[in-house]
């Protein structure tokens, strides 16, 4: 078990892991308020992928991963992902613009 440093890699590999074995893959989030730490874990009991952060920005990204997993788990692994990812890109763009204006 090693922490994955790059967020995009984590997302890609966790979704792959789930698709490979949807019934035994679980997605776990641990939040520790007093230390301000967030750990995400996806495992199928054979392979374990983890991601650790203390940044609020990463929590926003996690929201999207939550949406991906809720959709995958509630609707099934064969659901059309382009629908979800398309919405994400739409959401991400105005957010970046907002940050730019604030500066």
């Amino acid at each position, binding site marked *: 078990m090693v922490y994955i440093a790059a967020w995009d890699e984590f997302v890609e590999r966790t979704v792959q892991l789930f698709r490979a074995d949807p019934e035994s893959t679980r997605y776990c989030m641990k*939040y520790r308020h*007093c230390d301000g730490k967030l750990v995400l874990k996806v495992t199928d009991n054979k392979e374990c992928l983890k991601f650790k952060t*203390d940044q609020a920005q990463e929590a926003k990204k996690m929201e999207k991963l*939550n949406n991906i997993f*809720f959709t995958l788990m509630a609707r099934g692994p064969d659901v059309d992902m382009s629908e979800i990812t398309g919405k994400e890109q739409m959401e991400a763009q105005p957010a970046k613009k907002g940050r730019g204006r604030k500066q």
Partner: protein
Amino acid sequence: MVLLQPDPFLNELTSMFERNSETGSVWVTLKRSSLKSKVQKNKMKTAGQPIEYRCLVRATDGKKTISTSVGAKDHQRFQASYATILKARMTALKKRERKDRKKGAEDKKESGSKKPKRV
């Protein structure tokens, strides 16, 4: 393990975050599940019945465990409320944006102060 309806679950989750704000951790696990035992599943498979899967959501702080299940129809509403709770409760995380803003502001100041010197 208490299986709750989605809305009471979200309320319980909020108070669980509150209880563990000073010390302790909260775990939330999502899993695809049919909420049936292996025996039941095998019976249904042999009978040729389709197995309905839902998203099982479990939360624990190490002392108490709560759970709910979210189906295909109501998962969007649930994940929206869940995201709102996380946003409201995950306030201990560092804000990288502020640093960026400060850096950006400093850069601007530097460039701004350089200009009058040149004049």
